[in-house]
């Protein structure tokens, strides 16, 4: 069975199936085939899959081709090009869409996130962290929002580094709309990733889901500036739940949530960008282990 049919079978499964998406990621990975899972479900849930299976696969294959012509590449858990780090987290989506070019080196990446309404000090910190990450060969990943995210992305590009945006809508949309230009620029120079169907609008649930993918894509998450209610705080929690380190920029400790959070194992409070790269490099080296 051609690989394209596996991708199409997965699209058909997600379009028609009733199970949570994460469960399909597990089922498909375990079976090593989306067609096998689709066959099983067509048998079990005949009413949901009214059309003959071949027809559904053909329809999904045509959709994938149209997305691809539009510059949106589909990567499923069965594709060798599916982001490696993302495979390591329990709540990975079964597929992501990529605009631009994801490179194997992007696995060496760190997420830099923070408030939309950021202070000059916060923006400066985001820029210097992105510069240091680029200097040490890391890809800078962020959420393409105003404020800290924009500072991290643009600073990475300005010093010739790689940057990847992870968004909470489908790739055809930008939220908020004023981020559209930056989104196009990052798709042109790095990559933009979305786990949602290309037309998906933003929703209350989509942003936390996006934060889980951003954490999963990266080796660590750095929170630069964030209030009690922010999505960045959510991402810090998700990163720890993935077993990935979290860095809090020291100035965050003025917030109660950050002081409480900094006591959790796996959290590092840092004053300098160099500390982040040194710790990430140490924690992710796989040769040996010391007491």
């Amino acid at each position, binding site marked *: 069975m051609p690989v394209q049919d596996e991708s199409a079978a997965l699209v058909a499964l997600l379009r028609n199936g009733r199970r949570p998406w994460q469960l399909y990621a597990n089922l498909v990975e375990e079976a090593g085939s989306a067609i096998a899972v689709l066959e099983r479900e067509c048998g079990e849930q005949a009413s949901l899959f009214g059309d003959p299976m071949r027809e559904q696969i053909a329809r999904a294959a045509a959709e994938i081709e149209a997305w691809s012509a539009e510059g949106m590449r589909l990567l499923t858990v069965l594709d060798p090009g599916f982001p490696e780090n993302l495979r390591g987290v329990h709540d990975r989506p079964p597929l992501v869409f990529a605009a631009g070019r994801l490179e194997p080196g992007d696995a060496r990446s760190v997420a830099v996130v923070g408030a939309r309404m950021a202070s000059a000090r916060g923006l400066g910190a985001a820029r210097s962290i992105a510069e240091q990450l680029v200097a040490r060969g890391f890809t800078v990943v962020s959420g393409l929002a105003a404020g800290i995210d924009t500072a991290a992305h643009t600073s990475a590009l300005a010093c010739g580094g790689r940057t990847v945006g992870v968004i909470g809508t489908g790739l055809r949309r930008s939220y908020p709309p004023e981020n559209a230009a930056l989104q196009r620029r990052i798709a042109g120079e790095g990559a933009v990733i979305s786990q949602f169907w290309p037309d998906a609008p933003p929703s209350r649930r989509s942003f936390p889901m996006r934060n889980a993918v951003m954490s999963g894509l990266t080796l660590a998450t750095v929170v630069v500036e964030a209030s009690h209610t922010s999505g960045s705080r959510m991402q810090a929690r998700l990163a720890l*739940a*993935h*077993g990935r380190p979290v860095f809090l920029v020291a100035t965050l400790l003025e917030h109660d949530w950050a002081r409480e959070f900094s006591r959790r*194992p796996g959290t590092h409070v840092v004053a300098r960008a160099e500390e982040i790269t040194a710790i990430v490099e140490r924690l992710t080296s*796989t040769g*040996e282990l010391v007491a």
Partner: protein
Amino acid sequence: MPTVAELTGLYSNFMIGPRPGPDVCSQCFNFTDGFPRCYACTHGESWLDAVVPISYSVAREQLHHALAGYKRLDGEVARRLEVALAAVLWRYLAAHERCVARASGGERFELVTTVPSSDLARDERHPLRRVVGELCGPTRDRYERLLRRSGAAVPERAFSTEKFEPARTLDGHSVLLIDDTWTTGGNAQSAAAALRRAGAGRIAAVVIGRHLNREWRHNDRRLRELARPFDWGRCAVHGAPAGAAP
């Protein structure tokens, strides 16, 4: 090089330490409804002098994903999972190997080995051997591959005395048997039966994750009642008097 304390700190956020109790299986720490043993342990074979799970591994949650992923994935992400699991085993055994030995009626273990894979082909490149035999400080000097998957046709999780073949005879040696996951205990018990046949003395199993489904009966509530983050100073058989085999 990462330190054991740093890597295990990251896992403390989702590891859940089992504790003995009236509604907990006295062999494998599965949750029961007042029965001294769970269904599988009541009806299955018991060849182990102690079974000590480090954590519960809840289906589709992060520890479960790591325990499946270090075998199923390849590349750097799989190697990072391997190193992290080795760190978990290291920190736990450094603190609690004596508790485990006491629960099995002794003071220490002379040999350490791993439960082979149920699948013959997968057993040939089982990364658990690298975890226990190379990466994990407290076990690597005593590690020996004492068992291999035999050619006998035995279903994946089923118990059979023929499932594993001993590599050599043992002369009453005490053996610490390590596995990543305990579900029904079929594999670990089969491994213990084979070790016994080879002449082993005391045998205890330490498993990283005791597999559970959160949706099953009261498991969700029972899991939420257990302490978080994980307490490395305690273990499932902590403070058990010497010789108190379950």
